[in-house]
């Protein structure tokens, strides 16, 4: 041993030790006093305060019932003042006492520690017992305590497992409810949303009527995905898909799929949180069918649709399912694996409590194409219309013509109008050929249909039977996009070619008004919001133009991610699905000051 540690004297406590000890004791006493004061104050606040308040309340009640005198009034006011003053005084007292308590405790510990240091003694190791044995014993002891801990834990677990957690609602919610139970409990209202309700939502591909026209005018025109300006939130979408978001109030729905999984997602419009994920099974027939959709189509190109109560999704496999807004799957069925050259891509539409499926497949010779209306609550087929047409990639629209609903579908070569109530055909016109993908729209009282690479044709939807000879309003031969659907209002109709050529015609006569080359690629369809046209290119840049006789660019907003899906425009917000994320544009979630 070389050199003893300093400041450790032999046995005599160092100078000041006693002072430190006394200080510590005094500080300790003070601490206790302050603590008692605090507790007393707390008790006073919670016991005496309410008693006085009740007295006050009784006096007030008496005042209302009986005769009021100035004395009574002033008595009440004085008591009221006393109560309020007392409350403030007690708060203040607690605050001060708290600080005093802290100070005395600090003094106590400083003095205590000091005393300890001053009274430090040289360590005198006792005779070491057999270290080896001791270590073995220690380890054994520790093992036993850990084992004891294990046993205690096991006991608690056993106890809890035996007494099942009180989660009675689990039974009520049920994971796989029967279709009977799934019928909306809403007994008074209709089990579907009215057309009027739908008009202010975005319940299907390209919004109400499928025309890409939003009734809202408060849609943002400025954002930047990189800096986050104007972005309310963005949330990752687990599985890829080219389908577009649909919106009902504060819920946003979209789907995604891989070869092994088909999922439906519901997001919260407020937070962007993924509220639930729904699974759609893949029918066993798919494995045998060697389904091989084109990569550009993907496995979930069909946009979902909702009737305000339930939401429906169909996938490239022909598997269709319905969910309630809480994420329960109501039913599921396979419509048979579709025989589609590029992969099935038609989106869904809803009519009353039905979901409409355009199911065109094959080459037209095998009698396989159908138009279905399924019961939204059960999935049962309400009606089906056979049609001798080959596969198509357009989406059905339900429009109101002269107060009656028409279900319009575009195929090769027929543009067909059916009665959505019973499926009966109303009229048909021969107008397109080849592989049709752009969906028909209804604008300016005309149904407009595109034949890719060829022309745009306008049909008056007022006829009966074959109207090819009688009801063609005009044809515009200056080109036809192969993917993007047209968009139009009462004055203009716009065509957007995949490479960025925007053609504008007059709805009245089909005369070209202008064309304008945006020089970038497009997959998403254009939309009109008020007097603005929104064009989302494949790189995620939104070109916002003025609707009018010439193209005037109003703004250009970048998202910074590639986009294939058409955006949804609802009530101050735009929902855009990029390849990876769902974006909500429309300012931050928190809002600035009121004026």
């Amino acid at each position: 041993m070389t050199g003893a540690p300093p400041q450790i004297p032999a046995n005599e406590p160092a100078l000041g030790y006693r002072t430190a000890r006394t200080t510590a004791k005094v500080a300790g006493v003070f601490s206790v006093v302050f603590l008692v004061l605090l507790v007393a104050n707390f008790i006073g606040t919670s016991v005496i305060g309410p008693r006085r308040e009740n007295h006050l309340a009784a006096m007030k009640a008496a005042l209302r019932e009986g005769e009021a005198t100035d004395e009574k009034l002033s008595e009440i006011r004085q008591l009221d003042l006393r109560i309020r003053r007392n409350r403030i005084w007690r708060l203040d007292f607690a605050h001060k006492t708290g600080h005093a308590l802290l100070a005395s405790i600090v003094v106590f510990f400083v003095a205590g520690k000091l005393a300890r240091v001053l009274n430090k003694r040289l360590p005198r190791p006792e005779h070491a017992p057999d270290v080896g044995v001791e270590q073995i014993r220690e380890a054994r002891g520790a093992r036993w305590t850990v084992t004891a801990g294990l046993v205690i834990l096991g006991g608690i677990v056993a106890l809890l497992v035996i007494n099942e957690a009180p989660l009675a609602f689990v039974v009520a919610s049920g994971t796989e409810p029967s279709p009977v139970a799934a019928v909306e409990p809403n007994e008074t209202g209709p089990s579907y949303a009215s057309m009027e309700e739908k008009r202010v939502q975005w319940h299907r591909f390209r919004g109400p009527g499928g025309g890409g026209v939003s009734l809202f005018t408060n849609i943002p025109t400025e954002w930047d995905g990189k800096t986050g300006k104007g972005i309310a939130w963005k949330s990752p979408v687990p599985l890829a898909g080219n389908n577009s978001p649909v919106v009902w109030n504060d819920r946003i729905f979209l789907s995604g799929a891989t070869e092994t999984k088909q999922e439906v997602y519901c997001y919260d419009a407020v937070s962007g949180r993924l509220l639930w994920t729904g699974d759609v099974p893949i029918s066993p027939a798919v494995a045998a069918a060697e389904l091989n959709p084109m990569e550009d189509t993907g496995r979930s190109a069909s946009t979902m649709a909702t009737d305000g109560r339930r939401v429906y999704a169909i996938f490239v496999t022909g598997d269709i399912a319905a969910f309630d807004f809480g994420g329960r799957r109501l039913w599921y069925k396979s419509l048979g694996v579709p025989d589609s050259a590029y992969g099935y891509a038609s989106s869904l539409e809803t009519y009353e409590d039905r979901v409409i499926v355009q199911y065109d497949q094959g080459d037209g010779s095998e009698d396989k194409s159908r138009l279905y209306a399924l019961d939204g609550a059960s999935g049962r087929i309400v009606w089906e219309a056979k049609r001798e047409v080959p596969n198509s990639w357009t989406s059905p629209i339900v429009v109101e013509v002269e107060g009656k609903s028409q279900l319009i579908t575009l195929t090769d070569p027929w543009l067909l109008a059916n009665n959505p109530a019973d499926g009966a055909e109303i009229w048909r016109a021969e107008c397109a050929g080849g592989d049709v993908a752009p969906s028909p729209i209804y604008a300016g009282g005309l149904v407009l249909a595109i034949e890719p690479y060829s022309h745009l044709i306008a049909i008056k939807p007022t006829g009966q039977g074959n109207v090819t000879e009688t009801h063609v309003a005009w044809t515009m031969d200056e080109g036809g996009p192969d993917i993007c659907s047209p968009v139009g209002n009462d004055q203009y109709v716009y065509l957007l070619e995949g490479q960025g050529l925007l053609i504008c015609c007059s709805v009245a006569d089909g005369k070209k008004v202008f064309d304008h080359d945006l020089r970038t690629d497009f997959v998403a369809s254009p939309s009109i919001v008020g007097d603005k046209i929104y064009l989302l290119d494949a790189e995620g840049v939104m070109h916002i133009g003025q609707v009018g006789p010439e193209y005037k660019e109003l703004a250009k907003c970048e998202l910074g991610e590639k986009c294939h899906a058409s955006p949804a425009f609802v009530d101050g917000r735009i929902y855009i699905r990029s390849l990876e994320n769902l974006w909500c544009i429309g300012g931050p979630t928190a809002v600035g000051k009121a004026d």
Partner: protein
Amino acid sequence: MNQPQGKTDSGVVIGALIGTAVLVAIGALLLVDSTGRGGSGLSDAYELDAVKMARFDPNLIACHEVEPAIATGFARSRALTLDGEGRLYIAGDKAVHVLSAEGTLERVIAVSGEPRCVAVSSEGRIYVGLRNRVEVFDAAGERLAAWEPLGDRSFLSSILVAGDSVFVADAGNAVVQRYDKTGKAINRIGEKDPTRDIPGFLVPSPYFDLALAPDGLLRVVSPGRTRVEAYTFDGDLEFAWGENSIRIHGFCGCCNPVNIAMLPDGRYVTAEKGLIRVKIYDADGTFQSVVAGPDQLVEGGAARVFENAEDAEASGFDVAVDAAGRIFVLDTIENKVRVFVENQKGRSE
């Protein structure tokens, strides 16, 4: 450790101290309030108990509900009126729904904006008040006219056709505007005018209703004064009645009643928000009976409105009366119309 003397003694003390501390700590931990039922910590004296406030003598209820309620088909319904044949005209969202007396939807009239109020003339014309303008439709739903919009401050909340005049209650300007049937302004009623002893309407929220009484006078609600005022068509204030009280005989809150309707015999039906209650007052303004109280009218009772800002804002129920004296209540929370019939009448029929 290095405690030469008194080792065992201090050991016991320390052990006891630690043991106590451990027990107290565990106790404190287990007793941490995780219920969220602490409330404001104030005594009951300061309680604002909606249920207590909503309470009234159930014997005062002199009506019963008939038929199932009629769905409006709106997400946000706003106003209700009836025509001579008992058809219901309900304004909501961006349309007016015309329902047969049995409650089947007959016609949907699309309106260019959100309608706030609706009235039907004897010849079947439909006058729809939007935020600051009036649109006129024929019975088939064809738009006949759109009157010149009023200013930005305007906020139309009620409309009434009486004889050749159309009266529009403008809550934003707190005045009743009288038009002829072509939309030409005739005069303004109820503007503050000390010379005519008119105090001016007080309209703190977008509820401002008027009705035509069998005596030929207009009845206009001045909600901020919790009273009903009677005016001639030329704007002379004849009389007024109404008392502010949370109790059943008065109008509660700061701006009630929100809507009124006149029974064929000249009695009033009033609707209040906040504490949603529909009551009947006799022709001189004396409280008579209750049609329905908060517990009958709102699922979840009075507390629901107190606890939900959205429901509170939608709690201005509209009332209408048909020729037979049936009382129609437009539930703007659940978006349906409920029908009530007075008990005596029900029996005598």
